[in-house]
């Protein structure tokens, strides 16, 4: 936790300074009528820098390193897999379409992460895709990506 606070503190300190600087350089701080578009960004960036510095200093001075905040072993694997598969679904959404994407995603998670039996996996995956299609495409008329197969 201490290391995470140090990283977050340093990163947000830089972000705050850059945000305030960009606000001053690119936008008007004070115009003819009053505060311009750079006014609030400058102060927000500055506030963030001060708060982040406070966090960074506090974390560096703390003697205890704090507990681990990321899970280890199976928990971490599951977390990374779920995030990765979700990112994969988003990446191929345009190509395979929402319906097929939903089925592939659910099969990947249920069968290969949760180790569910094939029969229940397929039933849940196809059922969900169908219900989703009904609600969003049929009822709410959201034009989902249809993919190369046409649905």
């Amino acid at each position, binding site marked *: 936790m201490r290391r*995470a606070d140090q990283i977050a503190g340093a990163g947000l300190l830089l972000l705050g300074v850059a*945000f305030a600087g960009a606000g001053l350089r690119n936008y008007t701080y004070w*115009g003819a009528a009053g505060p311009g578009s750079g006014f609030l960004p400058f102060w927000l960036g500055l506030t963030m820098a001060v708060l982040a510095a*406070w966090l960074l200093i506090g974390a560096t001075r703390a003697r205890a390193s704090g507990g681990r905040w990321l899970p280890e072993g199976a928990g971490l694997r599951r977390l990374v897999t779920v995030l990765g598969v979700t990112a994969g679904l988003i990446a191929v959404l345009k190509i395979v379409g*929402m319906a097929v994407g939903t089925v592939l995603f659910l099969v990947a998670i249920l069968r290969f992460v949760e180790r569910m039996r094939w029969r229940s996996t397929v039933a849940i995956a196809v059922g969900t895709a169908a219900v*989703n299609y009904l609600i969003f495409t049929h009822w*709410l008329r959201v034009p989902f990506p249809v993919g190369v197969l046409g649905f």
Partner: protein
Amino acid sequence: MDFFANLSLGFSIAFTPFNLLMAAAGVTLGTLIGALPGVGPVSGVALLLPLTFGMDPVSGIIMLAALYAGSMYGGTITSVLINTPGESASVVTCIDGYQMALQGRAGPALGVAAIGSFVAGTIGVVLLMLMSPLLARWALSFGPPETFALMLLGLTTVTGLTGDNALKGYMSMVFGLMLAMVGFDIISGDARYAFGINEMLDGVEFLPVAIGLFGLGEVLVGAEQVTDMRILRARYGVRDVMLTAADWARSRGAIARGTALGFLIGVLPGAGPTIASFLAYTLEKKVSRHPEEFGRGAIEGVAAPESANNAASSAAFVPMLTLGIPGSATTAVMLGGLMMWGLRPGPLLFEKNPDFVWGLIASLYIANVMLLVLNIGFIPMFVRALRIPYGVLMPLIIIFCVTGAYSLNNKVWDVGVMLVFGGLGYVMKKLDYSPAALTLALVLGPLAERALRQSLIISDAGVAIFFLRPISAVLTLLALSAVAVPAARALRQAVRGRARAAAA
């Protein structure tokens, strides 16, 4: 006469078949979401917002408000039967609720929670109905300085009261405000911090952020935990949840005190049902004639917090509807929804959209009646839903997050934003930052900036304008004290820590 005309207008809207259907769907889903650990009312509202786009705003808010009320009821089921809170406002119910269940009194525990919730929820709506028009009329006189001071107060109190780490809470809030700066500035027309990306010219959209933080983020926190959900064998049929005369005599006072305290806490900007439930439990233990029974299955220990969280969830609508300042994380997401539906939250809402406000109020009465029936007669149905393994629920929620984010603009970009904020929400949650403060800041940011700039334009005295007008002075001082108190505490701790280090 105005009042009765408004109320009957409200009921005429709430009683249309479609709105009744939306209320029924809301209460059922809400009870379910409340009961399932890992998804709470904030996630529920964020996930269901996309479904409301095609609807009339009043139907949308009816569903979301019914869901919010339902989640307050449903959380109890899990607390009592599994000793795991279904959502954060039922954490304290675990203490005595689970003890009662172990003693074979799960029925009365669930029964008193349902009745207390109904009484508190209904009285809460009565007070909401009586208080809001007065508050809205008062707030109509607010100029830009008062509006800005009010938003500042809302931001600082939400940040100060949610989360354990005040410094990280304020960092989350400032980060949310920074995100709110992205995109076209309405006054100057500058495209700020857009980096030439077309999608960012319109700013960081609220919905993918909310779905990411509260939908995907929460699910990821759940995904790493391998939970062992053992449901206590208990009887909770209709006849089992009825209270005996002795139970009723002990609970009456607790329900009344919980309702009063819960409403009071809920009206405050920033303090929602969770805080109300904890305070109500503490109060009940203090006034009880047998405090030693608390923690060993005292029925008051269930009645008071469960009443308080429902009163608070009704009360949270007061500042949201009248001032445009949410009283809880859930109403903060609803506020974002209001803006997406094209409504302008604030005192004018009562004048310009009476159908919306009064339809909502009327349907809250109906929702509470539906919930009483649901939580007396259909508990076994919800317990069965608790048997769905998290491994199945998790990917289904993720699919819902993806489709919901996509349906906003039909752009994969928004789904990507959702994913990024999902990851961020996970990290924030694990490291004690406050996703609620970030969300509220993102919602209020543009309005607050406009009010700030307008105030400074009309001011001859610079920022002193906020202290020269009486109402804005009081609000600004309150907001500043909400920042100063935790800051002073942190400083004192730092000084004491150094003294200890020097002594050692």
